[in-house]
């Protein structure tokens, strides 16, 4: 039997996404179960990560499974020049599932073709990070009660942001309208706008955050990184235009929630944290339930 891996959000059809989100809700009600007892999950982090790795490990531990692995490439044979091919073939012998993050794009797809156990992509360079997308979808569904007819306002680095691109692609399966708020240098790439055009979905682009947030059901914040700007002066000019403060939220919808893949730097002022509309830490918790659902589905246990 061909094992099932999760490399790209496009590997899942809409029914499978719905199934994972439903399972995640069940795990949220009952997160500690002995479903994975006797199972070993390898977490191979060729580059560091806090949230993704810890939430995967938490997900496995709560279900009674064991975790093996490494947290950065320097503590693995990669530092001795081992190829990814050899690392995966080896680890494949020790684990029932491989969770991997790797800086090279396409590495997870390649690993999934070598491994005989399921591979979960926990981020391959700037390419895909499907479990983040699924936990974002779960957070949206949980707070809005639906994924249909929502307005999503994406803010910050829309050019290089892997999470916003995947979320856009995933949400475009439902009738979603988008607002893109970004400085000129970090605007949403044309290929994604063209994708929405072809589906007949609405979007607006603006550099003025205040003008669109009152309409939003979800504000998805991302970090604007200084190193993305070719001209540091340009960064200084725009850095404060994409910061969310508590006082800006007074006119926003009652049920609106603010998401952020984290880590944040200064793009959400700490005074927002105590607002009911701040949801980014709960979002990180949702990552555990969503990953429990994904692991169990891929192992055929649910």
């Amino acid at each position, binding site marked *: 039997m061909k094992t099932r891996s999760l490399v790209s959000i496009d590997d899942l059809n809409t029914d499978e996404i719905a199934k994972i989100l439903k399972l995640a809700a069940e795990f949220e009600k009952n997160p500690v179960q002995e479903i994975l007892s006797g199972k070993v999950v390898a977490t191979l982090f060729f580059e560091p990560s806090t949230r993704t790795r810890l939430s995967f490990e938490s997900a496995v531990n709560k279900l009674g499974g064991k975790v093996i692995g490494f947290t950065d490439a320097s503590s693995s044979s990669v530092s001795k020049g081992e190829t990814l091919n050899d690392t995966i073939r080896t680890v494949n012998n020790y684990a029932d599932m491989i969770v991997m993050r790797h800086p090279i794009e*396409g590495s997870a797809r390649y690993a999934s073709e070598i491994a005989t156990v399921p591979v979960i992509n926990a981020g391959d360079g700037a390419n895909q990070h499907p479990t983040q997308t699924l936990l974002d979808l779960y957070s949206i569904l949980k707070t809005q009660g639906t994924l249909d007819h929502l307005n999503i306002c994406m803010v910050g680095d829309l050019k290089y942001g892997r999470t916003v691109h995947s979320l856009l692609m995933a949400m475009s399966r439902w009738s979603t309208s988008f607002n893109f708020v970004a400085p000129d240098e970090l605007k949403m790439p044309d290929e994604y706008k063209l994708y929405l055009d072809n589906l007949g979905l609405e979007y607006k682009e603006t550099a003025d955050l205040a003008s669109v947030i009152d309409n939003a059901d979800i504000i998805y914040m991302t970090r604007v990184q200084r190193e993305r700007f070719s001209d540091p002066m340009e960064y200084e000019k725009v850095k404060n235009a994409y910061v969310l403060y508590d006082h800006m939220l007074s006119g926003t919808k009652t049920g609106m929630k603010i998401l952020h893949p984290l880590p944040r730097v200064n793009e959400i002022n700490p005074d927002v944290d105590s607002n009911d509309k701040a949801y980014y830490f709960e979002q990180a918790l949702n990552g555990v339930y969503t990953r429990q659902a994904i692991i169990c589905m891929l192992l055929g246990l649910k």
Partner: protein
Amino acid sequence: MKNINDPKQLLVSAIESGTVIDHIPASTLFKVIKILGLDKIRNQITFGTNLNSKTDGKKAIIKIASKFFEDDDINRIALVAPNAKLNIIKDYQVIEKRVVSVPDTITAIAKCMNPKCITNFEKVTTRFRVVSKKPVALKCHYCEKITDQERLEII
């Protein structure tokens, strides 16, 4: 057929038997030679390039004596010579004409233009899905980035 026998077109001498590949863009002639491995076979080959063409600007033509291609082999050149036309020659006569068509998937021919793609780091056979045939655009099976006609490199 007429073109082949038209004296004005006989810039490259006729062959008795074999394959004539015409309407190759002059700029991709050497890529076609490489893809078909013509630099490694012992057949007699003549080619002309920078020839005037009514439809293609500057074109190239290759004549390979005693050589006949399978469709799968010849379609590999569709990436760089999408309008190429083949004339199969026996006894100086064109007995069959064929066109090339871009296949839906491309394996082990093109290089992914993304320097951060796994195929440029480890010995991985490149694989692409053809997302546009004209102009050619290839989506990498691994990194999911698009390699377009301009950045297309043949391995």
